[in-house]
């Protein structure tokens, strides 16, 4: 049995990696990818907690997160495609039209 702490540490490292990606990547698609990485890190922690407590609630939460991620990706990619059709770019630096 691998201790829960190891899984949590791995999950933290993955989450941090995802965060670095969100901050440094400059096309919308890559930012999205990094967000997926962060979601997965959180999922991993949830599943580890589920085993630690012996309660499937954590796993159920992961299931719901996966569904959310699927919905989010469908909408997010649709938005990216729509923006690309209008602006011919997915660079987030250029997409500052809504900035105050």
């Amino acid at each position: 049995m691998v201790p829960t702490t190891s899984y949590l540490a791995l999950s933290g490292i993955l989450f941090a990696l995802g965060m670095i990606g969100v901050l440094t990547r400059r096309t919308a698609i890559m930012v999205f990818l990094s967000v997926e990485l962060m979601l997965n890190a959180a999922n991993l922690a949830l599943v580890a907690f589920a085993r630690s407590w012996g309660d499937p609630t954590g796993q159920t939460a992961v299931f719901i997160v996966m569904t959310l991620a699927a919905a989010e990706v469908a909408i997010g990619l649709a938005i990216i495609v729509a923006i690309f059709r209008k602006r011919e770019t997915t660079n987030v630096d250029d997409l500052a039209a809504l900035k105050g």
Partner: protein
Amino acid sequence: MMLAFILLGALAIVGGVITIAAKNAVHASLGLVGTLLCVAGLFATLNASFLAATQVIVYAGAVMVLFLFVIMLLNANQPVTERDPVPYVRELAGIGGTLLAGAFVVLAFTFKDPRPLAEGAEALRGGSALVMGETLLTRFLLPFEAVSILLLVAIVGAVALVQRPAAQPDGVPDELEEPVGAPQEERRQVPRGAAPALMQTRGAQDGEVRA
């Protein structure tokens, strides 16, 4: 068990690093696919076999294929090369990320299992579809239904978003109308994030990767 964890964990981290560091967007996505598969393997070691299968089917099999599809469709696989408007963002993000990871690791080691691990694993009964279904349709019925409605909304929204605009009633073609918030000059510039034509810039980009 320990060996599997170390192997999968190391591969997951490698995949994550590829995801955030690879120049080519397709390579980055493949790195993420690797991470997702490793996480699925980790789920399997955590007595969550149903989630492991779902992770591969939904994440690696559908979500990531969708990502790659869009990347290839928009030919958005080359990185943005011009100067970043935010100064020192890479360095700051690196330091921040390291601090965050360190904090998480320290936090993780303060966690104490509330009961012996073997006992907890036993209570999960392998995390099969049966266990998941029981929880999902009893204690989590409301979130379950909410998520299903969310999915429906997502489908409708995605269809509505990418639908081509209907013909203008005044007969002016879409092309001549000014897009909101995008002056004509800017549109004529060479696109920075991605090339308009499907395969136009593959050569240049590949050269870059090799160099």
